C-alpha cells in the first residue's frame, strides 16, 4: 500500500480496489450497535484544514474515531496560521506533536504534496485547490460499485464546473483506472486548457450524452472560485446544464445521479431530482465514512518500514 494518498492520478488499480474492498468491510461496522473498532488505538490523526469544510472534515473525524484514533482538528482560522505561520512551520509543529496522519485541505494545488515531504507521518489530501480530492473519488467509485455492481465498462458523465473541480479531476483518473469511460460536459468556458491530455471525452451538449450514461455526476458551480464571468446568467446555465426531471427521464432507467455536495438546488440540480431514489447524495455521505476508514486503516494499520 502507498504511504500517502495525494492524488488518484498515481493510484494503481490494485491499490484502488484494495481501498474499495476494505471499505466494504468498514461499511458493515456502521450497521453494528457499537460502531467502533480498536484498530488505531493510540494513533493520532490531525485534520489540517486551510479551507472551510464541514462535511469532509467531519467525515474524516468520524472515520478516525470509529477506528479509535485520537483526532485533532486544526483549522487555519483563529490559529497560528492567521498570525502568519508558514505551512512548513505548521507541519513541523504537528510533527512534534506526534501526528501519524495529517489530513490536509488547502486552497493551493499541490500543498499536500509539499507537506508530505516535510513530515514523517502519512498525508491524505482532502482537497487541494483545483487539483485533486482523492477520497471523494474513491467514495464515488465505491457508491457506483455498490449500486451497479461494477465499474468496468460503465459510462460515467461528469457535468458542471470542470475547470475548478478537483472532484472532476480525481474522479476522471480513478474511474478510468478502474475501467469506466468518462465524459465531461461543461460550457466551453469551464473546460480546462489541455483537457485533450486527460483520459476523457469532452462534450458541450448534455442532452446528447445523457441517454448513454450509466452514471451522471453533477458538480456544484463553485462561485467562490470564479473570478470572471464564465457564463451569462445562472438561468442559462441551468437551462443548458442543470439536471431536471426531463433530463432524468432521458437517462437509462438504472442510471444513477450523484452529487459530491453541497448541492445548490435549482441551479445545477433540480430539487425533485436531488430527492429521487436514483440520487445517491445521502448514500455518498455514509459511504464517505467507510472509504475514509479504509484509507486510514491502510495507511496506518501496518508497520511503517514495510508499507
Amino acid at each position, binding site marked *: *500500500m502507498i504511504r500517502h494518498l495525494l492524488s488518484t492520478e498515481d493510484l494503481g488499480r490494485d491499490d484502488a480496489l*484494495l481501498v474499495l*474492498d*476494505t471499505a466494504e*468491510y468498514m461499511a*458493515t461496522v456502521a450497521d*453494528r450497535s*457499537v460502531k467502533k*473498532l*480498536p*484498530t488505531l488505538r493510540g494513533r493520532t490523526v490531525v485534520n489540517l484544514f486551510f479551507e472551510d469544510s464541514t462535511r469532509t472534515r467531519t467525515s474524516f473525524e468520524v472515520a478516525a474515531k470509529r477506528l479509535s484514533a485520537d483526532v485533532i482538528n486544526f483549522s487555519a482560522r483563529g490559529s497560528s496560521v492567521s498570525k502568519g505561520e508558514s505551512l512548513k512551520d505548521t507541519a513541523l509543529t504537528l510533527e512534534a506533536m506526534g501526528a501519524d496522519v495529517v489530513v490536509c485541505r488547502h486552497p493551493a494545488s499541490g500543498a499536500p504534496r509539499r507537506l508530505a515531504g516535510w513530515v514523517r507521518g502519512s498525508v491524505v489530501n482532502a482537497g487541494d485547490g483545483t487539483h485533486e480530492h482523492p477520497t471523494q473519488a474513491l467514495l464515488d467509485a465505491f457508491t457506483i460499485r455498490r449500486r451497479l455492481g461494477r465499474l468496468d465498462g460503465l459510462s460515467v458523465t461528469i457535468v458542471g464546473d470542470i475547470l475548478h473541480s478537483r472532484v472532476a479531476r480525481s474522479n476522471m483518473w480513478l474511474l478510468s483506472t478502474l475501467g469506466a469511460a468518462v465524459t465531461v460536459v461543461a460550457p466551453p468556458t469551464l473546460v480546462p486548457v489541455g483537457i485533450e491530455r486527460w483520459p476523457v471525452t469532452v462534450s458541450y451538449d448534455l442532452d446528447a450524452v445523457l441517454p448513454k450514461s450509466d452514471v451522471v455526476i453533477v458538480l456544484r458551480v463553485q462561485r467562490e472560485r470564479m473570478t470572471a464571468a464564465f457564463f451569462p446568467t445562472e438561468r442559462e446555465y441551468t437551462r443548458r446544464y442543470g439536471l431536471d426531471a426531463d433530463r432524468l427521464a432521458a437517462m437509462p432507467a438504472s442510471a444513477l445521479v450523484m452529487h459530491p455536495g453541497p448541492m445548490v438546488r435549482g441551479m445545477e440540480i433540480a430539487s425533485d431530482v436531488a430527492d429521487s431514489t436514483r440520487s445517491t447524495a445521502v448514500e455518498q455521505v455514509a459511504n464517505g465514512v467507510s472509504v475514509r476508514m479504509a484509507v486510514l*486503516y*491502510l495507511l496506518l*494499520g*501496518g*508497520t511503517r518500514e*514495510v*508499507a
Partner: protein
Amino acid sequence: MATTATGGSLPGPEASGQGTVRTVLSGADIGRVLTRMAHQILEKTSGGAGVVLLGIPTRGVPLAHRLAARVRAVEGIELGVGSLDPTMHRDDLRLRAVRPLEVTDLPDGGIDGSTVILVDDVLYSGRTVRAALDALAEFGRPRVVQLAVLVDRGHRELPIRADYVGKNMPTSRQEVVAVRLVETDDRDAVMIVSEGAG
C-alpha cells in the same frame, strides 16, 4: 509474507526456499481427524444444539464448513456456520505490513445465547484467538465460546487453550507449520518446514 510470527496460514512450503519439508498429516489423515473432532463436538455439546461454527479466515473457514458437513452426516442436524475476521482487533498490526481484511459473515440468527466454536487451522501464540474473542464480543454475547484447531503447535503467549485439537504437534519456533486445503490450495496436507535446518 512468509514469516513465522503466527505460524498459521502460509502460501505453501515451496515458497520458503531450501528448507526441509516434512508432511505430518496427509489428506486422508486430515479427513479422519476432522471426523473425530466432529464427534467430539457433538459429544461435548450434547448433540450440537445451538452450536455455531465460526471459521477464522483464511483456512479456518473451510474447516468450519467441513466440520458442519460431518456433523450433518453423523447426526443429521444443521449447525450454523460463518466466518469471523479478527484483523481489526489484532495487537500486532504494527509489526508487519498492512493486512487485507477478510470476510466476517455470521449466521442469520446471530450468536446471542449460542455455543460459538471458533475454528482455525493452527494454534500458536494464541494472539489470533484473543483478537477473535474481542471481535466476537462486538456481535453479541454467546453463552459459551470454545475453540477447535486442526493443529496445536505449542508456544502459547497467552492463557488460551483449545477445546478440540486435531493434532498436537511439538515444533520449534524456527519451524513453520504449513496447512494446505483443497478449498484454498491445491491439496490437503499439513507440513512442517524447517528453514535452513536441513
